[in-house]
């Protein structure tokens, strides 16, 4: 927290050995403050979406929709219109309370924009009216097409029903028409959103959020013995840059390339610190570790372990066998073949490419106490390769005529970031997208295990061998491990286990309504995004660009990434083929329904 010359002390993501002071340690280190603040956020979320939310109402609605789907599934050999309507209605159920809906508005990030940068923050009533009028004609056309498609689907379904669902051609005709109707509904919904734009002013909500987050983090700053006044003075600057990074990432073309806000946060920070210099009064608010660890606790809450069996054993094997195997191989390759000087850069890059990109890099870097330059490098390489793979992999799959399920599993297991996986899947069609997105989601859940494994390995093997320690007794070794183990990882895993247990208790449908669509999407994930944006701006503001050069020596990180990624492509493709098309053919058939 102190400055060394003009350099911020949080030079590493979690490198500093915090002095252990018994009970006082609980309130004197960033690790514990991250846990306390994360727990406060999650508890507030619980109150907003569970205690205050319409939980009983959601349960009733879900039961009603499930009954319709069960009955329709018994009736026809294809998914009927009523089946789809019930499913879509169920998907939208959430337990958001009125207060939660209000608070969500204040967590809003700068929105998507195209030609007018101001539209990211502000849209006046007159402009909104003009936009709606301009989009009205498109909406009317989409509505008409949907009505036509709906009439055709209804007729086709009625014809199939009249034949007792025994005429294969009528059944095929019905399902084809229903598919067309679903597409027309999506197009209509998009056009409707554009035609019903409401005025907004994010300048006010962002100012309020800035004050709220500044005060939120100031609790720990004060108790940890730092100057509250100096922190609060610098915080608005860091927050403004975080908002700017969201703004840049929201430009439609930039967004479509997957150049996410963390990249812009680092670039903006680097630009300032390496040219005009980071103002000294800002440095007390440059609290990389504090922001990143608090964000990671919230990230832990969205790692819901029960989801790993969603696509059965194939999905589990592709993610939980192939990914760790590639991670271990890549780490070995970096150490033994490339002889990378930095073990931490090696493991961060390995986790980044084999698990799930930026999120895995952040968690692993924190777990092994990597330097911030190493995290910056890993994220930079990952984002560039992800942008390329997002377009290249579907093109290859299309060129060789790959089966949608195989292509989806291949892309879901290989492309680093979730958004890019969904984009790549969408380019191939709905089946590929569904499989790709689900495989990636299961892979996201692996982050908790990887972060814990890396923290344990670093504590028990790397740090001890570095210190050249002699053999200890079992008890002394355990005490030593406990002393060195990054505390926030316990909070990270605790959040994951607590939310996973709650999800299992609620069941899949209620779990989705309460956690996925409620606490996580509406509350904790939105805040976690802001915390990471603050952290990456801080990394940029505290990094000397020249320090990055030494890590690129000999191009080893890039070679490692290419070798690891190529291995990932091959292993995932082979495993996906064996699992979906040799061992578990039935599952592939179900996924194609």
């Amino acid at each position, binding site marked *: 927290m102190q400055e060394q010359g003009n350099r911020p002390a949080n030079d590493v993501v979690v490198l500093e050995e915090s002095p252990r002071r018994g009970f006082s340690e609980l309130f004197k280190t960033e690790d514990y403050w991250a846990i306390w603040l994360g727990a406060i956020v999650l508890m507030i979320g619980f109150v907003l979406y569970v205690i205050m939310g319409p939980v009983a109402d959601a349960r009733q609605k879900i039961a009603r929709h499930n009954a319709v789907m069960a009955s329709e599934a018994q009736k026809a050999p294809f998914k009927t219109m009523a*089946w789809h309507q019930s499913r879509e209605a169920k998907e939208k159920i959430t337990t958001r309370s009125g207060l939660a809906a209000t608070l969500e508005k204040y967590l809003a990030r700068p929105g998507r924009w195209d030609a007018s940068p101001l539209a990211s923050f502000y849209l006046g009533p007159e402009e909104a009216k003009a936009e709606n009028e301009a989009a009205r004609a498109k909406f009317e056309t989409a509505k008409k097409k949907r009505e036509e498609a709906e009439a055709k689907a209804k007729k086709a379904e009625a014809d199939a029903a009249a034949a007792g669902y025994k005429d294969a051609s009528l059944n095929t005709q019905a399902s084809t028409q229903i598919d067309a109707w679903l597409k027309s509904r999506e197009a209509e919904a998009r056009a409707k959103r554009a035609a019903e734009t409401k005025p907004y002013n994010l300048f006010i909500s962002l100012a309020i959020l800035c004050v709220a987050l500044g005060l939120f983090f100031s609790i720990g700053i004060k108790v940890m013995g730092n100057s509250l006044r100096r922190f609060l003075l610098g915080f608005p600057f860091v927050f403004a840059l975080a908002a700017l990074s969201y703004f840049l990432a929201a430009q439609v073309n930039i967004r479509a390339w997957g150049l996410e806000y963390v990249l812009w946060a680092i670039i903006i920070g680097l630009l300032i610190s390496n040219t005009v210099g980071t103002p000294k009064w800002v440095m007390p608010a440059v609290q990389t570790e504090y922001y990143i660890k608090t964000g990671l606790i919230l990230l832990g809450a969205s790692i819901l372990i029960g989801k790993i069996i969603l696509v059965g054993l194939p999905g589990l094997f592709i993610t939980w066998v192939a990914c760790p195997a590639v991670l271990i191989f890549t780490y070995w390759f970096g150490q033994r073949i490339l002889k990378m000087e930095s073990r931490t850069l090696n493991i961060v890059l390995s986790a980044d490419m084999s698990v799930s990109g930026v999120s895995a890099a952040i968690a692993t870097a924190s777990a092994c106490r990597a330097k911030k330059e190493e995290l910056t490098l890993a994220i930079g390489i990952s984002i560039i390769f992800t942008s390329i793979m997002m*377009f290249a992999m579907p093109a290859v799959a299309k060129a060789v005529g790959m089966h949608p399920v195989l292509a989806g599993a291949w892309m879901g297991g290989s492309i680093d970031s979730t*958004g890019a996986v969904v984009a790549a899947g969408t380019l191939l069609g709905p089946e590929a997208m569904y499989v790709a997105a689900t495989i990636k*989601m299961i892979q*996201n859940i692996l982050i908790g295990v990887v972060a814990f494994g890396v923290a344990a390995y670093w504590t028990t093997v790397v740090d001890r061998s570095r210190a050249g320690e002699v053999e200890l007794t079992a008890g002394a070794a355990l005490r030593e491990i406990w002393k060195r183990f990054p505390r926030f990882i316990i909070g990270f895993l605790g959040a994951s286990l607590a939310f996973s247990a709650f999800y299992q208790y609620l069941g899949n449908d209620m779990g989705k309504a309460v956690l*996925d669509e409620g606490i996580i999407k509406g509350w904790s*994930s939105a805040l976690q995004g802001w915390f990471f944006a603050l952290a990456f701006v801080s990394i940029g503001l505290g990094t000397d660009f020249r320090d990055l050069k030494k890590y690129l020596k000999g191009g080893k990180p890039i070679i490692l990434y290419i070798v690891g990624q190529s291995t990932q492509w091959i292993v995932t493709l082979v495993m996906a083929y064996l699992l979906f098309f040799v061992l578990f053919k039935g599952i592939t058939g179900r996924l194609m*329904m």
Partner: protein
Amino acid sequence: MEKEHCSNRPGGPWGPPGTNRWIVFLLWLLILVAFAFIVVPGLPGLLGIQQAHNLIIDEGIEAGAFFYPDVKKVGKAESYLRDSRDYAPLQPSICP
């Protein structure tokens, strides 16, 4: 060395020495703006992937989001697959 370099930096830690720092800042800013608003939008046309690029824009996909709660379609995919599994039509399906 670094300390000497830093001592030239009244405003912050690692900027170039002297009064040129604002010029360097503006130059890099210009490069950044050109990259973001000229190179990035122009690339899909140059690489022949304009159609794919436009589809991602039209579908409103959050291609940069790195974790699953930030991508709307992941939630849709998850619930679709789950319901397809739990409420699958009993007879063999012929749906696309």
